[in-house]
Structure formats: C-alpha cells, structure tokens
C-alpha cells in the first residue's frame, strides 16, 4: 500500500522544497519514495503540483486521481483545482490566503476564497484550514509557510513520517544558514495544531 501526498499551489510559493523535505523525511524513515515536480513555464505564476509517493508498489511518478491520502494546498483555489486527486476520506490541509491571478485583477472580478473552502468541506470531512499569514507571523514572512505547513501536517497526525526523520531532512536539505530557522518554523507548525 502506498501513501500519497499531493502538494499544490502557485508557482513561487515554495512547494518544491516542501516536497523535497517530505521525500527526504520518508527516505530517512527507510521508506521507498518517489516524487515528481512541475518545472518550466508553469512555474511563472501558474498552478504547480508536486506528487510525493511513499511505498514499494509505486510505479507511476504521478499520483493517479482518487489516490491522494493527503493534499497540502498552499492556496484555496488550487486545492479545489486538484480535489479530484483526493482519495475517499482523504485529508486536506489548505491555506485560506488567496492569490488572485493577474487576469482577475484586470477584469476586476475576484474569486471568493470562502466559496472554495465551502466546496472543499463538501468534498471531505477531513479538512484543516490554516492561515499562512498568522502561522508565519512570528517569522516575519509568509515565505516560511512551506516548512510550517509540514509541521501542521505532522502535528495533525497526517504524515506517515516521524518527526526525527523530518528534522534530519531539514538538516540535510535546507541551506546551512537557514537550517535553524527552518527547524524552528517546523516545530512552530507542529505546536500550532
């Protein structure tokens, strides 16, 4: 049996680092892990996904739709866009802070984040809403959300990876100067649950 985590968001939000940390953490826990990233043109402000697959019966680098145990969404509309990936009774962690595409700023219409959250709660009973601004307030930048949200996932019991393994993953993945801060951010994420 595999355990599948889909990370989704908007290019530039740091989903790639989050997926690397999950993969490294799973590997530290001696699990077989595969992952796949969106790289290229879509990274410029377009929707991005990272697929993390833990288990030894995995062949496809992409999670088949309907098979994600956990979706970690960095933006509410991106959670809605990818909800078909969620397995029945799967869990969703979603950041409620919206990013409006430039096209919408131009037309003046805005999409409603709350509408997305309502839609998500109809799709799963296992929905956890977080706010990147409040979660990362202490650290002065919402850029830390990618690591903080992994703490939230672990704290909420959604991750099939040990805390030690995740800490080790941060130590060997993140640039040296940022290891301590990121560990602090991660622990803060756990504590916030």
């Amino acid at each position, binding site marked *: 049996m595999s355990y599948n985590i889909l990370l989704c968001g*908007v290019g530039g939000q740091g989903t790639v680092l989050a997926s690397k940390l999950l993969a490294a953490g799973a590997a530290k826990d001696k699990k077989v892990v595969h992952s796949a990233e*969106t790289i290229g043109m879509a990274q410029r402000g377009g929707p991005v996904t990272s697929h993390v697959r833990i288990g030894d019966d995995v062949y*496809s680098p*992409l999670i088949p739709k309907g098979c994600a145990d956990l979706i970690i969404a960095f933006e509410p509309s991106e959670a809605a866009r990818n909800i078909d990936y969620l397995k029945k009774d799967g869990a969703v962690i979603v950041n409620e802070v919206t990013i409006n595409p*430039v096209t919408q700023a*131009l037309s003046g219409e805005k999409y409603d984040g709350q509408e997305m959250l309502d839609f998500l709660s109809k799709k799963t009973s296992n929905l956890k809403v977080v706010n990147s601004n409040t979660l990362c307030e202490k650290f002065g930048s919402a850029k830390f959300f990618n690591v903080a949200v992994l703490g939230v996932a672990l704290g909420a019991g959604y991750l099939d990876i040990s805390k030690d393994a995740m800490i080790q993953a941060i130590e*060997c993945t993140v640039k040296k100067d940022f290891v301590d801060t990121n560990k602090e951010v991660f622990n803060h994420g756990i504590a916030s649950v």
Partner: protein
Amino acid sequence: MASFLMKCILKCDIIVSCASHTDREELIVKKEYVMGNQAIAIGALAAGVNVATGYPGTPSSEIIDTIAAHNKDKNVHVEWSVNEKAAMEVAAGASFAGARCLVTMKMMGLNVASDALMSLAYVGVEGGLVVVVCDDPGPISSQTEQDTRLFGKYCRIPVFDPASVEEAFEMIKDAFEYSEKYHTPVIFRPTTRIDHAYAEIEYDEAVKPKEYAGFVKNSKRFVIFPRLSRMNHEMIEKRNPAIGDDFSSYKGNVATGKAGNKKAVLTGGVCYAYSKEYIQDRDDVTLVKVATPHPFPEKFILESLKGVEEVLVVEELYPYLEDELIFLAGKHHLNIKVLGKHTFDSPLAGECTPEDVAKRIECFINGTPYSEAAKDVAEENIKLPIRPPVLCAGCPHRASFYAVKQAMKGQKANFCGDIGCYTLGNAMPLDMVDTCLCMGAGITMAQGLFNTDPETVNFAFVGDSTFFASGMTGVANAIYNEADIILCVLDNSTTAMTGHQPHPGTGRNMMGDFVDKISIEKILLGMGVAKVERVNPLEHEKAVAVVKEMASIKGVKAILFESPCIAIVKSNKKMTVTDKCIGCKKCIREIGCPALSVGEDGKVKIDALTCTGCTLCAQVCPTDAIVNA
C-alpha cells in the same frame, strides 16, 4: 567562480547524501535521491563520459547543470553550447578522437541539431556518442508534440526509452556501450515525467572519465562524400535488423503475464509506469514493455505476443509502437487486432495520465467500451480562477514591452516574438507578441512581414541567449536584404526560462571559468546595423524616446534593453501605495504586474512578498501615489 559553482551544486538539490566508504578504497558508494535528469547525468559520469555538451530547454536542462556540479576536478569538458547544432558538432569531433560524448537538448533542439546528426548517422562514431533528447508530451513547455522515437527511426539510429528514473540511470550506460559496439550515435529519449521525477539511486562517486586514444586521421572514414554515404547507407540498412535482434535480448525489454493470454498491452517509457501501476502483479493480461523502440526488437515482440489476439498500445505523442506492430503484423501475417491512436482507443494528443491509462486498460480487459463520459467528473463543479503563467513581478521584459507599446501608440506596428520568458509578453494587458514560431524566428519573420508591408513598423524581440543561439544569422539576413526592422534585444544576462544558465554574453561558462563576454552591441555594429542604442527599460520615459527615435530611422536598428533577471540579481526594494491613490487602476490595466491587486477599499495594493521595487508602476501612476517603501 566559487560562488557560481556553489550555485550549481545547490541548484542540484542533493538531498539525501549518505556517502559510505566500503572496504575497496577507490570505491565510494553514494546513495542519493535525485531528479531523473540528475540520474542521467550521474549515469553518464559513471559511464566515464569525457565531453558533455548541450543547449538548455525544458525538460532537459538539469543534465548539463548536474554534470558541471559534479565536475570539481574538471576532468570532463562540459559546456552550454550556443545552440544544439554546435553541441552536436563539438561532440562529433570529440567522438572521432575516441572520447565518450553526451549531448543534451529538448526535442525541438533536435530539429536544430538534425543537420549534424543525420550526417553523423552515416559517418558513424568512434567514442560512444549519446544524444539525450527530452520529449515533452502535453506539451507543457514546448511548441510541438514531436516524437523523437520517430526522429531516431528517420536517422536510422538506435533509440532508448527509459520508463523510470532508476532505469534511466542504468540505461544511459548501456546506451554508451551500444554506441561503441555499433559505431553509431544513439538517441536516449526520456519524457518530462521521467526527467522531472525523483527516486533514489546508488552510484560510485569515484569513477574517472574513460581514457581515449585521440584522433587518428582517416579521411576515408571521417569525410562524408556521396560514395561513402551510399556505402554506409547500405551498411546501416543491413546492420539495423541485427541491432533489432540484439535488442530482443536487451534487459529493458520485458514481457509479463501468463502463457495463453489473448490480450496484451504494448507500451514503453512513462506509459509503462502508468500501465504497471494499474496491472501490478496480475497475469491475465500480457504487459509488453519496449525500452528500445528503434530498431524495433521484432523477435522479442513476436515471442511476447504468441497466441495474443488483441493488443492495446499505450503511448504518448505519435503512434510509434502502434505503427511498428501493424508493420510487424503485416510482415508476419499475424492475426492481431491492434487498438491505439489509429482506432481512437488512445488519446491522439496530450499527456497520458495514470488514471486514464488505468481506465482504458480496465475497459480493454473487460471488453467494455471506453468513453470519456465514463470518467469520474466531479458532481459538484466550481468555477476556478484561470491562472496562466505570467512575467514575474519586476521582470524587466514587462518594462521593455510597455516602452515599445507606448512609443508605437497610434502607429501601425507588428511585434514578432521569440522563445523564452518573454513569450509571456503576449498576455493581457501587454499583448505585445503577434508571432512566435521557433528559436530566432522573430527576426527573420519581422523581415518577412516588412517585405509584404513596408509601411508598418516591424519589431523583433529576442532574448540574449536566443540571440546567440540563432538570432545572429537573421540579423545578417535582414541587413543584407535591406530590411527595415527594429531589433529589440531583451538582455537580462541569463537564460531565464530554463533555470538561469550562462551563455556567451554572461562572462562565465560551465567549466566554472570567467571568460570574456561577447558583446551583443559589438556584434551588431560589426554586422553593420544602422544604429544601436542601449537603454534600461525600467527608465520608462527614456526607453520610450529611444524606441520613437529608432522608428524614424531606415534599415536594421537595434535597441538593447538591458536589465538583469530579478531571479539572479535579488532586490530588497519594495514599492508601497500612499493615500494619493484614487483607485483608477491604471497601473493594473497598463502593465499587469502580478504584485498589483485591488484592495477592499478600492485602492491598489502591492504584495510585499513579490514586489521587487522596479518602479514601473510608480512611473505609470497619474497621481504619483506609488512610492518606495
């Protein structure tokens, strides 16, 4: 220098690095969780590659980056060549001297390199020469959905098609072996989902590049002449069936399922991974994986399909395996029903997905009809915001396009675009890309438009890397043929779209050396353009004045819009909106920067996370409401 190398290393994101020394001193086994492209690079190093060349292009770029990051001793010659043709020719020369050579590119790069490769296929190689051509089904970041397997067949050279990161790592070594065994260039063709997938590989870090003899002159062998071509053509046609037989026992060509199965799935590459994900260990359907699409391993296929009556072919891009199977069925009078793209049983275009492949195989096994409608469509749908890729906040290209747009207000003008981040200048509200065809085509197409309508002002936009790749010939062509065009070089000092690779204008190369920058301005002046002006596009008024001036001059003129990519020169400046904002939204309507939005109070808001303080919005604002934060 050190910082550049460091950047390369960091970029490769070595995330699980558990080096352990074994009892053999020289062997350093390292386990690493890597991207497919990194696995290909490390596999090539493990094969003792001597020369690695390429031109950046998604999804292939990380291969050369990784080889450079591992090349601390400078034992390998690694380079970003100016384009794919140059890369292929450098490798051909080194191969003639016996060196093992790796050439990397995306599939459209092979169109550029094909002149060299086609002839090289006739001449043959000495040192192993593997051309890694990354296909992009979807397409996700490309202009076409061309299929390199078919290109390999056209060149009549072997093609390898890995189905996983782990297999790619092993297979690249085999590709070198086969290249040397048959003295032919070979193509290694992964697709995006292999290139950008990650898995753990284990390798010996201490491998040294292969020793080679050096060039031994032999004009009868290395000089292509009609007589040699005719002779070698015949040799190749006789050789290829033999390679097909050799491939029939290649370890990557695998069939599973029990004897007597009436149904089989024929597949390869990542589509094998999707098929296997669904089939797992069940044996009531035969699963045939082709790792060497050309020359087709006929014996292996005939053996695998013994007794099979119906085959579903699962593949992306063109119906390659399907055509080969239909050919084989005709050749051997096989009574096999072949389902695939020709019968509309496989998608005709775009990427395959694991769930769709599963559904199609399920229907095939059960004998039930597949229909799109049967797909699990979400019962309750919600309108999702459309999120097209856009130029980054603070991107200097936005300012360049805006300056030209403002200068040409009320005048008839055409805007020919090119390949790079700046293709995104087509998006609203800039709407400044009227044409985009292929690398370098903007310049020559602007000439073509001028030849049909000299009254319109014709602009060609080209990036610095694209200029070196294939822009210079177009400029020479335009000058020689008396065109009247304005060349806009959007010089951001990097190859941005593919991940910030250096090029001849940046002053550094992949050996980590500082080299003389080749000046685009001097090239243009040397060619004899009527006038060259350099301007910072973020100085809006000045930039507009330069464009207007150029539009009044005859001949080929060039404007160098110089401002570095925001991803390489980080700014800590920010803009902020004061009370003076009247909520007219002119900034949003005119430049469409993603850092700008409208707040609850109807006034413009600037996102502090993404703003780079480029000041373009402040220069557009009619009430001076935007200031430095």
